[in-house]
């Protein structure tokens, strides 16, 4: 079970809800992923077209926990404002703190992220900060009281997979709260690797929504996360430099 604050989840895959080709495909992909936590962004409503369909309104909210993000924020104050707006919906108390410090790489601003996390924890939010794979920053966020740490695998939407498995494994080893690898996942192998490294979960969006067949990819990611987790729990063999025969060397019938 994945435990985040007071909540428990049987799925370790967290799914983003952006950029799907259609609402129908999105609904099917969400279903196929088995995800129980879905991320959303907070944006201005087009008040002149109330009939516009909204994915969230078509969702059975008893089946999912919402994880709104603070995307768009560049300062801690902006992130806190977005988080408060999200909470005022009455639908959620978890927040993905996302404070971007660089437009080109979309890498998080560590100083503002730390500040936002502190302010939101004081207000009683369940705080999950999106952070770089910096080991010490992850530690600092945990010390503040964050309920999970979400280091990126590589830049958001890049699909480059896990660029620094060493740092991720350091973060995972030292953490006493769930570590969810967030951003940069490209294919199922990336998700499985994150889980094999010992991550408690994987958060991805574009890898599914941008796939040629998002529904099939959602299922692939579900299986990859499950396989990676099982592999981690099973304990993989250490890597050796030379071969080691699987068949016995004794009792060979020599002609």
């Amino acid at each position, binding site marked *: 079970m994945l435990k985040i604050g007071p909540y428990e989840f049987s799925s370790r895959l967290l799914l*983003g*809800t952006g950029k799907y080709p259609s609402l129908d495909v999105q609904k099917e992909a969400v279903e196929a992923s088995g995800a129980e936590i879905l*991320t959303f*962004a*907070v*944006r201005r409503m087009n008040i*002149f077209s109330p009939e516009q369909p909204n994915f969230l*309104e078509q969702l059975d909210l008893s089946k999912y926990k919402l994880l*709104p993000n603070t995307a768009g924020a560049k300062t801690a104050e902006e992130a806190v404002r977005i988080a408060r707006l999200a909470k*005022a919906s009455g639908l959620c108390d978890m927040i993905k703190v996302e404070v971007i410090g660089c437009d080109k790489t979309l890498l998080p601003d560590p100083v503002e992220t730390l500040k936002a996390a502190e302010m939101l924890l004081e207000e009683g939010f369940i705080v999950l900060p999106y952070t770089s794979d910096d080991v010490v920053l992850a530690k600092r966020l945990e010390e503040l009281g964050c309920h999970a740490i979400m280091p990126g695998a590589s830049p958001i939407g890049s699909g480059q997979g896990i660029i620094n498995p060493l740092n991720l494994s350091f973060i995972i080893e030292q953490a006493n709260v769930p570590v969810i690898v967030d951003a940069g996942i490209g294919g199922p192998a990336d998700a499985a690797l994150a889980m094999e490294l010992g991550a408690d979960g994987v958060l991805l969006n574009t890898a599914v929504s941008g796939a040629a067949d998002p529904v099939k990819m959602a299922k692939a990611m579900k299986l990859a996360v499950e396989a990676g987790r099982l592999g981690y729990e099973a304990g993989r063999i250490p890597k050796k430099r030379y071969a080691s025969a699987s068949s016995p060397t004794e009792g060979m019938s020599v002609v």
Partner: protein
Amino acid sequence: MTLVINGETVTVPDEVKTVSDLLAYFRLDNKLAIVEVNVRIIQKHEYGTTALCDGDRVEIVHFVGGG
């Protein structure tokens, strides 16, 4: 009355007096909308009692797809 809604200047009829009236006027009353008036978040139970004044800055936001 003239309001600034989501950054746009919008004139609404005189019968719009509260946040509830405003949402009903734009047919947003059964949408998952979150409202802020002059940078103060209005909780749902305050919609009916929060009066709007000429020049108020109103933000109406909702959840959209995002990662």
